[in-house]
């Protein structure tokens, strides 16, 4: 003979272990004659379900009745948090995309042709589309050369997403070599001695010295 508290915990355990809703009949069949004594299994189950319904009031989950029986269900109000468990892992952007973005950032306004010239390979349309859809780049005009190619620049959204107030906050190009030396995996460039020098001075350096 089991008592009502025991029965309640068995029903609780069964509902939590089951893969879907469980009918009252199936729950009743969990109990043996020995468990029951003179009592009706279905009555025992119903009383247990009542108790469990009361117990889960105000919890993260609730007891719900659906067509095929009873189940515990996470409350809808917690969906915003719980759903984060199941968010897909973000894919990673390709190197080609990052290089394209970097060139647009540093050399804007630029055309696809400009980017292709520096990268040495064609820029795929899907990269430009991805960057546009992400809201990081936009067409800012057209160059008045044959074909009137579109000029691209970065957006405010780009600054927001990279937590920048203005592009000024990015390291000037001249510092990149040393930046890569400390952060990149395959950098062979030595840090330039003038990396902390303000931009204005750098500008005056003869190109050949860099």
């Amino acid at each position, binding site marked *: 003979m089991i008592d009502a508290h025991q029965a309640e915990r068995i029903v609780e355990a069964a509902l939590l272990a089951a893969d879907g809703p469980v009918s009252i009949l199936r729950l009743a069949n969990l109990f043996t004659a020995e468990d029951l004594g003179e009592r009706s299994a279905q009555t025992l189950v119903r009383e247990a379900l009542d108790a469990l319904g009361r117990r889960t009031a105000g919890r993260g989950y609730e007891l719900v009745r659906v067509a095929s029986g009873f189940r515990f269900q996470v409350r809808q109000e917690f969906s915003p948090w719980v759903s984060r468990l199941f968010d897909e892992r973000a894919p990673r952007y390709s190197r080609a995309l990052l290089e394209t973005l970097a060139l647009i950032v540093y050399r*804007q306004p630029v055309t696809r042709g400009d980017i292709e010239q520096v990268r040495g390979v064609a820029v795929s349309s899907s990269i430009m589309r991805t960057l546009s859809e992400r809201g990081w780049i936009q067409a800012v005009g057209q160059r008045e050369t044959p074909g009137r190619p579109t000029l691209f620049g970065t957006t405010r959204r780009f600054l927001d997403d990279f937590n920048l107030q203005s592009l000024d906050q990015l390291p000037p190009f001249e510092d*990149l070599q040393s930046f890569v030396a400390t952060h990149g995996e395959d950098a062979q460039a030595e840090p330039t001695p003038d990396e902390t020098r303000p931009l204005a001075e750098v500008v005056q350096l003869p190109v050949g010295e860099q």
Partner: protein
Amino acid sequence: MSDAPTRLDAARERRDNVVALIDGKVFDELPADLYIPPDALEVCLEAFEGPLDLLLYLIRRQNLDILDIEVAEVTEQYLRYIDLMKALKLDLAGEYLLMAAMLAEIKSRLLLPQPAAEDEEEDPRAELVRRLQEYERLKRAAENLDELPRQDRDLFGAHAGKPEWVKARVQPTVDLKELMVALAEVLRRADLHQTHAVQLEGLSVRERMSDILARVNAASGFVAFDALFDPREGRRGVVVTFLALLELAREALVDLVQNAPFSPIYVRPPQARETS
């Protein structure tokens, strides 16, 4: 090595000191002459996991200590089992024969007169004893492992139905560092000198160039030169805007027009020109 329940059951029975089940009848004692009805032998043999298991069984049947094996006796029994298996044309794994050879070798070495030397020559049984002991430990470890509570057999995860949710499309995030590394990499491959020359205006100027271009093109007409300057940005902002305009004009991305001296200057999208 199938997982047939008969074999498992046999293994379990054997643990309880039952030698064999024949037509449901339990034999819990080995006949003195070691004769075992063929059916039972088959059941028994299938329950062995290999020669070590069989050997261990024979030793334990005799209530012998592994450390004190009567090799001659055990070898005798082992070989009789092997012979029976052969006679029954049971599929005899090569390992059983290998073990038989090893036992025979140990037996012969033990029969040789012991050299008087003090160099502590290893007991020929040592290797066998070591293997038997380790195998016995393994058997026990396997039994212990099987007794641990196990998910889906003894343990059940507690789950509730998931709430409905809109699956968010997660965008990749890019670290600023990645961007820098990408740029450095591409520039290393490209003509660095030319890149430097283009780079000279500095980022604020480049950024402002995009801003101005976007404004001018959005206006799709004229934008007053003055309107592009925001006094709130201070002297530095004015300089940046000015440099940006000069650079845009130099690259022919905008036209600067003035109808008369000292009249307002306007900025407009460039008119198609003939390139000479």
